[in-house]
């Protein structure tokens, strides 16, 4: 018999209002409705969430780990982007 696996979905859970949805794992499910149902059973058995997003895993576009240097290194020497770069007179340094 031909083996047909249910597609993979990535699961994001908002643990409470005021916080972002955060990636917490993945599930296999045949469709979006069941993916939500399965994600609820697998990842929120102890009130870990108030909202769930599921997205089919192959719809996620990810950066290439090999491209890490050219993507992220340029930020390394731009310390002037941080407030602590600027030393102000003591009287106003809490600005």
């Amino acid at each position, binding site marked *: 018999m031909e083996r047909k696996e249910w597609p*993979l979905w990535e699961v994001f859970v908002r643990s409470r209002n005021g916080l972002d949805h955060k990636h917490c*794992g993945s599930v*296999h499910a045949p*469709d979006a409705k069941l993916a939500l149902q399965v994600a609820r*059973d697998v990842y929120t*058995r102890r009130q870990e969430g108030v909202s769930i997003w599921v997205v089919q895993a192959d719809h996620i576009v990810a950066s290439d780990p090999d491209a890490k240097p050219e993507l992220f290194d340029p930020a390394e020497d731009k310390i002037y982007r941080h407030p602590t770069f600027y030393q102000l007179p003591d009287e106003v340094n809490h600005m």
Partner: protein
Amino acid sequence: MYTQALDVPQQNPDKGPRAVENPEYQAEFDAKIDAGGYIEAKDWMPEAYRKTLVRQISQHAHSEIVGMLPEGNWITRAPTLKRKAILLAKVQDEGGHGLYLYAAAETLGVSRDELLEALHTGRAKYSSIFNYPTLTWADIGVIGWLVDGAAIMNQIPLCKCSYGPYARAMVRICKEESFHQRQGYDLLLAMMKGTQEQREMVQDAVNRWWWPSIMMFGPHDKDSPNSAQSSRWGIKRISNDDLRQKFVDATVEQAKVLGVTMPDPELKWNAERGHHDFGAIDWDEFWNVVNGHGQGNVDRLAARVKAWEDGAWVREAALEHERKRAAREHQAA
């Protein structure tokens, strides 16, 4: 532990770490490990590291879902509604733990179906502890107290293992595992306050599960050939014997409070070592069960395969339903 069969010689042994495959990447990888950093799914990793992780994580996942069987056996016979609800929740957790772990293994480029196929055909192992039968209700308590207790000892260091997806799955699992151990001990406390017959039942279950539980930590360090490499890779943080000793030391006091004794006349405090000494482990029994000749091996695997095959039509129908829905949507558009 749940991955004790890593010590079984492989049928197709790796030719050893492909350390020189890409010296530059290898150096980066080693540096990350040495700095206590994490390797993530898409990062370069030596092929032997990847293979070891697939074996370890999938064995662990298989153990979780096969572990549902001996306990599921008692759901319909739980003595009260409260105990039934607790046991249902625990067995559901074990299924969840299996899913977290399969998902972690899948990040290494193997499919869920391949992993299950390896389990169902007997190529992949699961923890030998689940090949012992659950004869009485006391067994359910003792499994929580000793078997899950041993699992926790082993799993806490894995929360800091070098492979990110595995470490994160273990954090979730450890949070839930504590409930498993405590409900087991609580169940046994209740039985110990009952009739003489119930107390004897608890002692009998302890007698049967004690040795298999301490075997769960795997062979002695000197007989565990893969441990050194796993330590180097940050997959194993504490040795089999150290974990076993820690478990024995922790359990002795718990047995005293419960009012049971361990079936080991040589178990006693050694002030000089600052640890409890214990008797020799019957490794022949251990290997016998690991290699498929335990009391429950055949039944467990048959139950797993039957559940999988009986569910095939549901999996297929769900896919077909989605295919038709998508086709209708496409037509309407």
